[in-house]
């Protein structure tokens, strides 16, 4: 993996960390291109590509027609011809027109061609809610992508991970759907720039003995807040940040759950048929004899994403996660003894 040209620790927003990752990748590898809607002069609607067109020129950082299937489809052609496109889907739900190109072509070309054709495309998707966005601007669409073999799906929870994961995504020979938690774009954190956890590994963000919160992307911060609040209730909470949704790091997650014996999976997306169901199944299959309670999920409701004034009811927050922790059969042994 490429080492960053950024050295030393600074404090930056996640958007700035992503911007720096793109700039460093463009600098490091002339095959890297950045394109999409409004990524040029405007610098992206979230300013993640700010200044890149001016610095690297319109041949490498450019605006395209407003057509997502065309953006991903042409990126595939460019990757077949040896380039490394990094494309932006402006919002989660705006990526759906590109769904066929992503699932039927980007994900499958290596396999179809028995490894003779590589398509190292990175699709950046700002996703999730919590920004007061109107409909079609707040979807958590990770399960569509994680259900597709051939794609890597990653999502950062911190600015430092945003930098590292994006550099790794661009270096990856596999296509990567890079999900950016848009409500955390402006959250600041340290940017180390040095080596971090491997691309496809989860990390323990906070150590604890009683229960494991499994979170990713926008919910990492929520899980850490919950852990602090839980301390007052007497629970010592561990937080695992998945980082890579596909492939899934069974080892790190299961090691944590075996230590704590209890787990809650937290995500913004609807629960039914969602990513959390896969996590619960995997953890239960692998850690059954270590579990003191069923693995629970705290997710968005099974409804279309709500309008801005109602989204607070939908998004998992600290209280809802604490409630789930409370339901983890803490009095299990007492009940058994009494039976």
């Amino acid at each position, binding site marked *: 993996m490429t080492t960053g040209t950024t050295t030393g620790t600074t404090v930056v927003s996640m958007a700035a960390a992503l911007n720096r990752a793109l700039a460093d990748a463009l600098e490091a590898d002339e095959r890297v291109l950045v394109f999409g809607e409004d990524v040029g002069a405007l610098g992206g609607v979230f300013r993640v590509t700010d200044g890149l067109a001016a610095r690297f020129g319109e041949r490498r950082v450019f605006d395209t027609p407003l*057509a997502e299937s*065309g953006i991903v*489809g*042409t990126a595939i*052609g460019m990757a*077949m011809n040896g380039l490394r496109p990094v494309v932006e889907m402006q919002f989660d739900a705006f990526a759906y027109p590109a769904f*066929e190109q992503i699932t*039927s072509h980007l994900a499958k070309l290596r396999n*179809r061609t028995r490894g003779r054709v590589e398509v190292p495309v990175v699709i950046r998707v700002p996703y999730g809610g919590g920004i007061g966005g109107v409909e079609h601007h707040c979807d958590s669409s990770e399960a569509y992508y994680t259900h597709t073999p051939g794609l890597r799906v990653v999502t950062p929870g911190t600015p430092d991970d945003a930098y590292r994961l994006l550099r790794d995504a661009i270096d990856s020979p596999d296509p990567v759907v890079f999900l950016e938690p848009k409500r955390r774009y402006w959250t600041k954190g340290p940017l180390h720039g040095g080596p971090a956890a491997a691309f496809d590994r989860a990390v323990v963000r906070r150590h604890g003995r009683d229960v494991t919160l499994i979170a990713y992307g926008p919910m990492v911060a929520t899980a850490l807040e919950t852990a602090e609040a839980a301390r007052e209730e007497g629970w010592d909470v561990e937080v695992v940040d998945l980082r890579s949704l596909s492939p899934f790091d*069974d080892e790190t997650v299961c090691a944590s759950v075996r230590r704590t014996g209890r787990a809650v999976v937290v995500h913004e997306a609807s629960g039914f048929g969602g990513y959390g169901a896969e996590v619960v199944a995997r953890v239960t299959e692998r850690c059954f004899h270590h579990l003191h309670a069923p693995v629970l999920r705290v997710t968005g409701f099974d409804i279309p994403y709500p309008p801005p004034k109602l989204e607070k009811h939908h998004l998992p927050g600290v209280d809802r996660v604490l409630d789930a922790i409370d339901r983890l059969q803490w009095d299990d042994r007492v009940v058994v003894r009494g039976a």
Partner: protein
Amino acid sequence: MARLRAPERERTLLPSEEPLSLLRKDGSPVEDSPLEMPDDDVLVRLHRHMVIGRRFDTQATALTKQGRLAVYPSSRGQEACQVGAVLALREQDWLFPTYRDSVALVTRGVDPAGALTLLRGDWHLGYDPHEHRVGPQCTPLATNTPHAVGFAHAARLKGEDTAALVMLGDGATSEGDTHEALNFAGVWRTPVVFLVQNNGYAISVPLSKQTAAPSLAHKGIGYGVPSVLVDGNDAAAVYAVVREALRADGPTLVEAITYRIEAHTNADDATRYRDADEVAAWLDRDPVDRLEAHLVSRGLLDAAGKRALAEEAEAFAARVREQLNADVETDPAELFAHVYAEPTTHLREQAAQLARELA
């Protein structure tokens, strides 16, 4: 960018009223055609590949009936489009074909067994795209159009003189990807030729239910892409049009009017949606006969030449039979080998599970 507004380009956006052609139905040359007649040696090569291509196509259909192929979409009747366009490609150019373009593939030099691997069911693709500069056969229609545009755009960014030829049918012109790709190519001035083989039907749906446009070539205008309407049963004309388009400094949409003589595939029953008279009329406009008549009238082909070519085509078909009648070993472990650059832990576990089941 000044080139974009040049009057010359604006004038050439509209296709001609009638399809351009070089040869009449009986093989006689069209007087005052705006197209340049290919050299004699090119005409001979066009004919040779069409004869071999047709024999290949007949053989593939026969092998399907014998159960050697799962399905085969025939190119019969469309040989002038596929051979004419492929021979117009330069060595460095790329072809982005569909499932119906098997004759185009073998004309480009792809091994017949490789061209039929998808339909035989051993794997999804049987050739190395980089070897002959042929992309994978596109099955969900029109999705290959943005690939061709991206590929050619990348070539331009790298300073390479490479064009792309993407094949699609009349039905695929209704798909959104075709329009997005034409638009991108128009904006970027990408050297891509969109060759629409208008064979009259998308499986069973006739062109009249596909579009209200005056012609499919007209669809280029909205994207600033120059368009050409050509007689798709005239190999010389298709060759001339595509050859010029590949050398243009930007995209071209070519609509070639042709006809699918066979049903959509062996699994289709064309009598349910078209009558025999229509097919007979098109058989009378056969693309191979047309060029052959021209070559004979010009003294470029004689009886001995025809016999020699027929023998060459038979030998080609015999090789196809031999290849396709041989059973190919498939390897279940390969199912997990190419999903990612390196198989993930998860896939290694599943590969081990399958291996245990098979042990």
